[in-house]
């Protein structure tokens, strides 16, 4: 984990309430797809956990949705302003487990961390299929960016305005070697039911006090006992989680 000051070099709306922010600063603590950063916002006590969408030697990209006061304040920030953040947080996706044709499933703001995962898998010669689930047409973001990487992309919308009508589970391909997912709990639960028998890793979300394992604020019960979403996760093998189904 590292603490650093990051400068906003790009800040663009992707939809009505989803923004992409590119930050320049020290990215050396970032080691695997699926990790997150904890952003400190002026006037707010706790930091905000946001997934890393992509990173290189000098910049890190995040995508966030305005849901409350903190993200609203973030959306008002301008290019050139700086943010204090902790980086290199969390245990991300294990790309070694993917097999040849992994399936990546993202719902809403669960989509961002799958981007660097898809990129990493493609670089390793895998053929990922990416299912991106949204409610309706004007909420869709990043479908083209995933296609540009070279991934096969399926979009689902609940109202059927674009792509497959319904939920991500309505669009599952017949064959896939492994499943990676990030999204809201109801989606993960449905996906768990639909993919029993194949291996996979899911990224969880929980309210956090620290983000680096110190406070036990983010615990989740697993078959191996209580685990911290921030330090032992956010990515867990789906079979290890306790599913009330």
């Amino acid at each position: 984990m590292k603490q650093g000051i990051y400068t906003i070099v790009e800040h663009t709306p992707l939809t009505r309430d989803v923004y992409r922010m590119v930050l320049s600063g020290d990215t050396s603590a970032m080691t695997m797809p699926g990790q997150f950063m904890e952003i400190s916002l002026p006037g707010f006590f706790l930091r905000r956990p946001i997934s890393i969408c992509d990173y290189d030697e000098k910049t890190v990209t995040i995508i966030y949705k305005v849901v409350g006061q903190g993200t609203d304040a973030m959306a008002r920030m301008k290019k050139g302003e700086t943010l204090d953040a902790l980086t290199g947080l969390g245990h991300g996706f294990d790309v070694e487990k993917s097999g040849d044709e992994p399936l990546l499933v993202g719902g809403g703001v669960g989509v961002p961390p799958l981007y660097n995962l898809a990129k990493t898998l493609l670089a390793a010669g895998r053929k990922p299929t990416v299912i991106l689930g949204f409610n309706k047409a004007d909420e869709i973001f990043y479908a083209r960016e995933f296609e540009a990487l070279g991934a096969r992309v399926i979009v689902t919308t609940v109202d059927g305005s674009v792509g497959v009508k319904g939920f991500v589970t309505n669009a599952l391909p017949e064959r896939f070697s492994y499943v990676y997912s990030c999204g809201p709990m109801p989606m993960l639960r449905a996906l768990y039911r639909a993919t029993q028998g194949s291996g996979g890793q899911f990224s969880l979300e929980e309210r956090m006090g620290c983000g680096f394992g110190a406070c036990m604020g983010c615990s989740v019960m697993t078959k191996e006992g209580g685990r911290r979403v921030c330090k032992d996760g956010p990515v867990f093998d789906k079979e290890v989680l306790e599913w009330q189904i």
Partner: protein
Amino acid sequence: MADLKVTLSGLELDNPIIPASGTFGYGYEFAELYDINVLGSFSFKGTTLEPRFGNPTPRIAETPSGMINAVGMQNPGIDRVITEELPRLKRCFHKKVIANIGGFSVDEYAECCAHIDKEDQVGLIEVNVSCPNVHNGCMSFGTDPLGISAVTKAVKAVTSKPVYVKLSPNVTDIVPLAAAAAEAGADGISLINTLLGMRIDLRTKKPVIANKMGGFSGSAILPVALRMVYQVYEAVKLPIIGMGGVSTARDVVEMMLAGATAVEVGAANLVDPWACPKIIADLPGVMAQYGITSLKDIIGGAH
């Protein structure tokens, strides 16, 4: 040279800074970030006789200048702390640690403290009679002088280590509780634990925290903590570990002037993991600015 040394019931500390229980785990998350031997000591995660998973999530909410937690004393139980956590800690921390002990009955507190009594690494026991996050739990002890007295006597009977009783601020008058601990033989008083608080999510229109209520801490509670430390210092002739909302070297000086011999730092560690070493590094400068040469000299100076 600024003298930062203080002594808690015979336990000599290089400086008064002690990360507070529940915000520092068993130390190693922070040992990865800095040499935790710069600390005066630290108070480990509230530990009970049996392992506990704690409360359902969400356990955390934000407040203006603070936070609410309802962790519910998640811990691996005293035996695993002794066999696993302490040996692991020994490799990165060469000073005495403060054992923070929670419980649900007088016997349980006593048994837990009897287990830890043999551990050389433990310099002091901080008995938490005040956790607001456990149903039917220790807060009933913490708000009743008879309960505090019973727990203190039972613990004192099984250990030769200094016993500090950690008090709850969720009472009308803190003084009778501190007095009860003192009369029952406590070696010192730790205060304050968190204030009972709540947040409501406007989206769901329900409490943010699954347990509905939780413990409120962070910068926002500093004035309440200062007031209570001041009152207890006035009423009871025992050393005090003061805490609640401390996040800067100035806050530390203020807390000591109110009557604290040492100062715990809690929620600040969660938002700035380097908060404690920064405070320690800043202390000499702040002391110089206010004409203080030795921290020992200012304890209770505001009275």
